[in-house]
């Protein structure tokens, strides 16, 4: 069997496994609930926006501020739900499936372990990317139609958000090669939490102009590039905001990135390749 055909067969196997899990239905229900609540929040915020009057000497664009804040909040929720999906789709792909005896009948087939792992990655990444893009664009449309505010850049933040979730898929897959399912799930969520904290620290570091905090945050963004991509996605939704509005948005918590642009995108792509290569190398030597 040609490796390309095998990839599709196994990716399809992984996809069927994903959509048949109860967790998938739970995530879908939570997502619909989130989108409903998000629409309600937009409705009330923008309907009361005319009643908010900043002091005369403070020149803040309240519509941009509210729209960007709500969209930033939605992006955090989208990434979080995407990460939940990514982790649950991949946390037991190797260790868990091997323990349950699901993996061995597949591994002894002539497709090869690297192909098997790559296919499982593509299957999970496909589901996660589709999910993140769908939810992200749904929230953008909700804010746009309800509040008549649109991000400065619409497509790229969604792509970066999806890229961030794909990084988590790869990390979780690597974890599944070396850890048991539960340990892997805990480890990936801890990494995700550490990345978010590092991002917030970066915002604080820049507000206080603390060199050491800024450096720590930059290192964290490169060590855990899903955080760098998420921050860059936030930056791009208010890329053109200036003056006091731009400054307030930069203060966060859904502020802009301090590591951004093509540097972090290229780094993330390389990081993804290295994580998958390490996972494949370990998996190829693993006793099952």
């Amino acid at each position, binding site marked *: 069997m040609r490796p390309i055909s095998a990839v599709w*067969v196994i990716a399809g196997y992984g996809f069927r496994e994903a959509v048949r899990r109860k967790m998938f239905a739970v995530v879908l229900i939570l997502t619909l609930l989130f989108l409903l609540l998000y629409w309600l929040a937009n409705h009330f915020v923008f309907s009361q926006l005319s009643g908010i009057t900043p002091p005369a000497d403070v020149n803040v664009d309240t519509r941009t501020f509210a729209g960007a804040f709500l969209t930033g909040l939605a992006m955090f929720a989208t990434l979080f739900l995407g990460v939940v999906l990514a982790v649950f789709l991949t946390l037991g792909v190797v260790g868990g499936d091997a323990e349950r005896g699901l993996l061995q009948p597949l591994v002894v*087939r*002539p497709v090869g372990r690297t192909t098997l792992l790559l296919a499982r990655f593509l299957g999970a990444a496909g589901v996660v990317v589709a999910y993140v893009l769908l939810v992200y664009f749904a929230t953008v449309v909700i804010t746009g139609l309800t509040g008549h505010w649109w991000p400065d850049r619409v497509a790229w933040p969604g792509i970066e958000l999806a890229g961030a979730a794909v990084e988590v898929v790869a990390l979780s897959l690597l974890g599944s090669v070396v850890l048991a399912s539960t340990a892997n799930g805990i480890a990936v969520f801890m990494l995700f939490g550490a990345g978010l904290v590092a991002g917030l620290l970066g915002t604080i570091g820049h507000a206080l102009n603390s060199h050491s905090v800024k450096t720590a945050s930059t290192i964290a963004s490169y060590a855990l590039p899903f955080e760098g991509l998420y921050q860059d996605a936030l930056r791009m939704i208010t890329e053109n905001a200036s003056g006091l509005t731009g400054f307030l948005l930069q203060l966060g918590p859904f502020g802009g990135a301090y590591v951004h642009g093509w540097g972090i995108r290229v780094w993330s792509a390389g990081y993804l390749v290295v994580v998958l290569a390490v996972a494949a190398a370990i998996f190829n*030597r693993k*006793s099952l």
Partner: protein
Amino acid sequence: MPDALAVRNLQKRYGAVHALRGVDLTVGEGELVGLLGPNGAGKSTLVKIAAGLVRATSGEARVAGARAGSRPARAALGYLAELFRFPGWYTADELLLLHQRLAGSTGGAAERARLLELVALTDARNRRVDAMSKGMAQRLGIAQALVGEPKLLLLDEPTSALDPVGRRTVRLLLEELRGRGVSVLLNSHLLSEIELVCDRVVILLGGDVVTAGAPHELARPRGVELETDAGVQTIAGATREDAPRLVAEAVAAGRRVYGVRVLTSTLEEVYLEAVGGETD
């Protein structure tokens, strides 16, 4: 024609534990070899190395002439693990279709129907795996291992979950496979089963081969049993060659002979002798 499985001086160490200590073993074309030994003897490790699931520390294992674990070796074998599971949402037919695709089999629906018939699951063709009994799932596992007409079949405890009828089905299946030239390495604790179907038996203990040979070669003579009008008499130490003489002597002595039976040790006795009565 290379052996279906050729193992030379195979060693496997897990840290300080020697799972295999230089095992030599061959399974020829169409040969059915039984692997016996107590738990921890190294049987499953040997089967897993042949299947490419575990790497040997040293030595060599070749499947149909190809290094175990390589793509050609994996293409030449079928494997049923001791502890296996299939996704519950697949029907029997869908599962075989998945494995046909992974094995590159071109057998299509005809192969799937034939395999399901072979393991007596034709009526369960559209039944989901999670609706199957343990025995049915085990038989489906055997059908899955046979996808793509492998040259070598590695079966790790294939009858552990089967009832006597299911075990008989598997036994008949193994005999049929042997007739078709498929080689089988059968790892089982069921001595009677091994004795019934296997051409050769290999007994492992502590990672070493302690006994190997055909069941009838391993069996030791235990005497001859003679049934006459005076009752049943066992002549210890007598062999098959002594039987005609013993019958003639009894007839000459005026006895009516109703039966004569050459006694040999069973595989169970051979096994217990080889492993020194060692259990789990």
